[in-house]
């Protein structure tokens, strides 16, 4: 039931796509405000049980899983706005990593009894699947996952978290639960050999980079929004600091970065399935510029907040930390610039090739 486009060059999201994202946005606006983040942090819990239940009830776990095995059969372009909303909210729970990346990978493998069982439970929202992909040195949310899907020597293994040794690798972002895993993998845990795994791991990397870019863009916009709200209220020298050109121009500069990362992100989402040098470069482009937009926006927000930006008492720091973490998640700048170089130095260039892809007849 993938949301279909309009069958001609059209850069707008469909109403269905907008609606799905709108529902997630509304839910997170209700349940994932900075006060909620603070509460979770103080509780020491990994997840906000109530919020995660509400998210699970939306049935998004199977968003990108094929309809033939119980998913919604959506495409990445149908999910990109959801990922952006997760970034905007600084969501602690692994909606993007689970539904956007790990689960569709697991579901895409040749199914066995074990994999089918795990996929079914995950689709039902009973468990999450955490992914150990070679693009990342750590596995996020491994401890709360019901199953770990781990790449080792280019093959894929499916194990229970209890069967491997997990070491917590604490992140500056209080909501990122990173682990390294040792042991527990064997011939018996292997669910895909090298031949099958290669293309599917590559595809997971593309989704990972794409949806991480989306989250970074959401973070960037949130930082600008927080700073704008503050600049309208905070008075210095007898007027709101938002009246000063220095503040205006810094925020305008950050917004320009966002405005020109956004269409790249959406184009990357719309063309990811081509899985060629053109689509990969677009994804990498999106990841790079979304990271940069988040960096500039977060630092600008800190600066606009003045001393306050340096404290726990304002909310910017949550977004600054997430931005730092995601910049290197699913490939850092060097990796993605390398993919762009490959496309620029070896691919077709020029205005007629904006939408070129390997299979295109244009």
């Amino acid at each position: 039931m993938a949301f279909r486009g309009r069958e001609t060059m059209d850069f707008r999201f469909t109403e269905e796509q907008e609606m799905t994202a709108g529902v997630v946005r509304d839910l997170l606006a209700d349940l994932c405000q900075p006060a909620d983040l603070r509460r979770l942090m103080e509780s020491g819990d990994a997840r906000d049980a109530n919020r995660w239940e509400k998210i699970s009830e939306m049935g998004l776990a199977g968003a990108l899983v094929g309809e033939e095995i119980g998913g919604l059969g959506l495409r990445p372009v149908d999910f990109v706005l959801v990922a952006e909303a997760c970034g905007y909210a600084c969501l602690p729970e692994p909606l993007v990593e689970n539904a956007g990346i790990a689960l569709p990978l697991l579901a895409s493998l040749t199914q066995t009894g074990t994999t089918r069982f795990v996929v079914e439970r995950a689709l039902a929202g009973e468990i999450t699947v955490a992914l150990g992909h070679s693009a990342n040195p750590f596995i996020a949310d491994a401890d709360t996952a019901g199953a770990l899907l781990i790449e080792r020597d280019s093959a894929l293994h499916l194990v229970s978290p209890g069967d491997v040794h997990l070491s917590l690798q604490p992140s500056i972002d209080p909501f990122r639960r990173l682990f390294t895993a040792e042991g527990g993998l064997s011939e018996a845990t292997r669910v895909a050999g090298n031949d099958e795994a290669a293309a599917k791991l590559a595809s997971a990397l593309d989704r990972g980079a794409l949806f991480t870019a989306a989250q970074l863009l959401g973070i960037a916009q949130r930082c600008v929004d927080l700073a704008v709200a503050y600049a309208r209220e905070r008075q210095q020298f007898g007027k709101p600091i938002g009246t000063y050109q220095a503040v205006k121009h810094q925020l305008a500069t950050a917004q320009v970065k966002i405005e020109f990362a956004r269409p790249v992100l959406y184009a990357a989402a719309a063309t990811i399935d081509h899985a060629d040098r053109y689509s990969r470069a677009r994804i990498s482009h999106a990841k790079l510029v979304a990271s940069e937009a988040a960096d500039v926006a977060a630092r600008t927000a800190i600066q606009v907040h003045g001393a306050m930006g340096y404290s726990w008492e304002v909310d910017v720091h949550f977004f600054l930390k997430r931005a730092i973490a995601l910049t290197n998640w699913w490939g850092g700048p060097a990796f993605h610039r390398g993919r762009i170089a490959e496309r620029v130095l070896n691919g077709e260039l020029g205005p007629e090739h904006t939408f070129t892809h390997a299979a295109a007849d244009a």
Partner: protein
Amino acid sequence: MDLTYSPDQKRFRHEVRSWMEAHVPSLPLPSFDASREGFEAHREWERTLSQGRWGMVTWPETYGGRGLDLIQWLIFEEEYYRAGAPLRVNQNGIFLLGPTLMEYGTPEQKARFLTAMASGDEIWAQAWSEPQAGSDLAAVKSSAVRDGDDYVLKGHKIWSSRAVFADWAFGLFRTDPASQRHKGLSLVFFPLDAPGVRVQPIAQIDGETGFAEIFLEDVRVPAFNRLGGEGEGWTICMATAGFERGLMLRSPARFQVAARKLVDLYKAHEHEVEPSVREAVLRSWMDTEAYALSIYSTASRLAAGGHIGAEASTNKIFWSEMDIALHKAALSILGARAELLRSAPEAGDIGRWLDGYFFSLAGPIYAGSNEIQRNIIAERMLGLPRA
């Protein structure tokens, strides 16, 4: 969201491509700003375009257009720049004034002016700025005094592009002498060969002219030459500025061609330059792509009935800064040859990068300085308070 051209769009692209291949002059035309000869060669090209009905493809057929949508316009532009076709000498007319005329003109005015514009018979200059009114356009002092069915124009315009050789100009004039700032202004056209008009070329940093000052002393034009109501000049002018900054004036294809040339230049000198130059080159490619995608996005939205807003300002900032960075990257590849004129025996493949760099430096200034654009973004897009 569907980023695949329809079969019709593909057919259209091939139609443009074939026509361009058959008609684009094989040698570059001489600059339209440097000599009358170059200007007339470009006028000839406008006429050729017009004969193929390619003068302004989005205009209605009545005025020489094809009534096409913005996506088709983008495809046209891509093929136009891909073919290396000449710059549009009539861009002030077709991109700036044309859309405004279409919206605010009377049927008689449209018939009188649009057709001659599309055909290349009348080439237009803009006459926005005055010595004391640059980014602060509301400070114009030039006056248009009503006298029967005529206006009598008096004043001093500056930074009028194309005015040296063009046929007509449009500009803001104060029709209410008692008015202040943006009240009491009207948009009026005048022929550049009318009695009382004196055009004085301004020498530019790259040695060419292109811009001119216009001195108007009791220039008499019929009231028919006023676009929109008396005193509505500011509103209309703001609409024109929207078009200028927003979409038409800097089509992405132009920058994408520049980025392709930059990549070629880089490949030819890859082993002589610092590794960081590679990043600058990739950045320029990324930026031109982002700009193209952004314009496609806007075009899709406009096609569905949307309006262009503060994104006109984000576009202006983005392309002007991108254009400078792109040319700086090229100069860094050229190294010690960057300072040479193209006539130098050792110039080699220096191309027009230095000219382009000087031209790019004007980008953050004209069509509303980037400082003004940042104010607009902060106030209208982000909702920050006015000072």
